[in-house]
């Protein structure tokens, strides 16, 4: 390299920059392309229902009436529920693995946690139907009557429903949140902990300091899991009960955007029906963008506050695609 004339080096550099820039631009092109295609294919539905699509609750393929609100509700409800359930567990795993675990346990535990992410979603769904749902039903039957008076716990004990969906999603997103959080905690400079100990901090206090240091990254990890939960389809549709009605109850059967597309795309026989399903995909896409923007903002405001930069990784979930032909029974 020493002998290379500077002009050639800069040409190489320019080529390299152009090459990588092109790949980066491809992503932008892809996202814009997806948005454009979703918009174009759902034009019929957009023109017919306009904004009502977002706020009406009837989904009636026979009458050609389509409103997405129950699906939006179900998607957000299930994803937030999963977030609430999984975050303490994921953080606990991350802290234990990075700070407290004996060395012998670290590798197998890390491996097992990450293995959770490798299990196909249909397997989670089957496990949900045969193991989780009966357990949830027992829990629902055991729920005392005074508790059932609250809207959150109302309704008959079906087993399938929001609670089962939230639980299965929580298990599915734990590996994402925990492994990224663990990396973030590992990246906290040793000097931070040493300084804490030097000041006479206990272990718990030192960990608190590390958590505080890495909180933008941890927030990013949690949002990564949230993004996953929004787009998850197969496992959710198998346990959520697929009933497009808005209910505050954890016990009620509900529906999500990704699930309705997977369920109804193959048999959508009219143009309007198909168009409405694509618009559901568009709504999911737009919501995902909004949620990502909000989480970016959150991370940005937190990081500005503590004046540290830890790279936060928030990946958008894959926009819901129609199920591969043949996947539906």
């Amino acid at each position, binding site marked *: 390299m020493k002998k290379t004339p500077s002009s050639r080096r800069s040409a190489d550099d320019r080529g390299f920059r152009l090459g990588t820039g092109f790949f980066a631009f491809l992503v932008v092109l892809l996202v814009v392309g997806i948005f454009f295609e979703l918009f174009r294919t759902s034009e019929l539905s957009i023109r017919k229902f306009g904004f009502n699509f977002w706020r009406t609750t009837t989904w009636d*393929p026979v009458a050609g009436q389509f409103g997405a609100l129950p699906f939006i509700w179900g998607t957000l409800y299930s994803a937030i529920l999963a977030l609430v359930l999984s975050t303490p567990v994921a953080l606990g795993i991350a802290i234990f693995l990075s700070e407290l675990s004996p060395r012998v346990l670290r590798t197998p535990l890390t491996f097992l946690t990450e293995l959770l992410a490798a299990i196909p979603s249909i397997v989670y769904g089957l496990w949900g139907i045969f193991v989780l749902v009966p357990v949830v039903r027992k829990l629902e039957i055991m729920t005392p009557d005074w508790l059932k008076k609250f809207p959150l716990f109302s309704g008959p004990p079906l087993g399938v429903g929001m609670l089962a969906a939230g639980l299965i999603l929580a298990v599915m997103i734990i590996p994402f949140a925990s492994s990224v959080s663990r990396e973030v905690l590992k990246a906290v400079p040793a000097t931070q902990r040493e300084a804490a100990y030097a000041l006479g901090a206990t272990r718990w206090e030192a960990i608190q300091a590390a958590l505080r240091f890495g909180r933008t990254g941890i927030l990013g990890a949690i949002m990564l899991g949230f993004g996953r939960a929004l787009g998850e389809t197969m496992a959710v549709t198998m346990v959520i009960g697929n009933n497009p009605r808005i209910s505050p109850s954890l016990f009620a*059967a509900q*529906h999500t955007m990704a699930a309705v597309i997977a369920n109804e795309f193959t048999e959508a026989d009219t143009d309007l029906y198909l168009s409405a399903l694509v618009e559901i995909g568009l709504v999911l896409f737009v919501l995902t963008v909004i949620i990502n923007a909000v989480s970016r903002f959150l991370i940005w405001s937190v990081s500005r506050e503590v004046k540290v930069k830890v790279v936060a990784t928030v990946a958008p979930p894959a926009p819901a695609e129609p199920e591969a032909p043949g996947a*539906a029974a």
Partner: protein
Amino acid sequence: MKPIRLLLAAVVGALLALPGATATAQNVQINGAGATFPYPIYSKWFAEYNKLHPEVAINYQSIGSGGGIRQLTNQTVFFGASDGPMTSEQQQAAAGRVLHLPTVLGGVVPVYNIPGVTGELKFTGTVIADIVLGKITKWNNGAIAALNPGVPLPDLDVTVAHRSDGSGTTYIFVDYLSKVSPEFKSKVGVATAVNWPVGVGGKGNEGVAGLVKQTPGSFGYVELIYAIQNKIPYGSVQNMDGEFVKSSLESVTAAASVAAKQMPKDFRVSITNAPGKGVYPISSFTWILLYESPSDKQRSKIMVDFMKWALTDGQKFAAELGYAPLPAEVVALEMEALKRIKV
């Protein structure tokens, strides 16, 4: 390194050999797509037909009836398959006249899970409609009890389980209910996916079967074969003649024999709630859809030959796979109709 290289060589070899082998043995490939319900018998048929005619490979994608009709309309497949006949609008959108050819029959049965009730329950169409409309909410409801004297029906909530995915099974079920209950017709209507007033949705026949099996107090509908395979009790349904008939291959075929007497020329007929003795009322044909004057004469000729085989020799495979074979009258009509395809 060595075993890896060997493995690689084997994989590459296999990949190279596969298309080569198929290309020499099979000269014609015909693609079709559509209903999932007849998929097991269709794949059996195509495999058996391929044994007789090794030069022909028929490839079928079970993507759903709606998808099959769409692909036939766009001419991305040579033939379609559907559990419900094409609507007039769909026919107009197609690239030519489409012939509907019934292939086999299926029955949809009401299934239930009531603790303490193992025997067969009797239903009428209106009772089923009232259950799925959410008007009958308890199993000990007077209307159910009146049909089933002596059965210890509990004071248990009814949970309705239906299909969450668009499905020919749903089409057959709601087509029947719309015929027997005007209220169901106006509130819900007929389609492969409908707006259910109550209940929970399961994906696929197996999803509904799973829900019913697990949920005490549940009521659902599945194809006959799924009820048998999953050992779920299923009820008999009152037919137009007032008899309570259990779904069986014979009672489903009987529905078709009655229909054969007034079969419309295009075979687009619903045989739910058919009149006649021993007829099971929630029965239906499933159809293969072919263009009457296709541009590809060679494939068309093969499809006509295949259909002739499927309607005669092929019918013997139906029963073992849980389908009711076509009655002889219908087969005769179809043989006549096949002449309409210009080859």
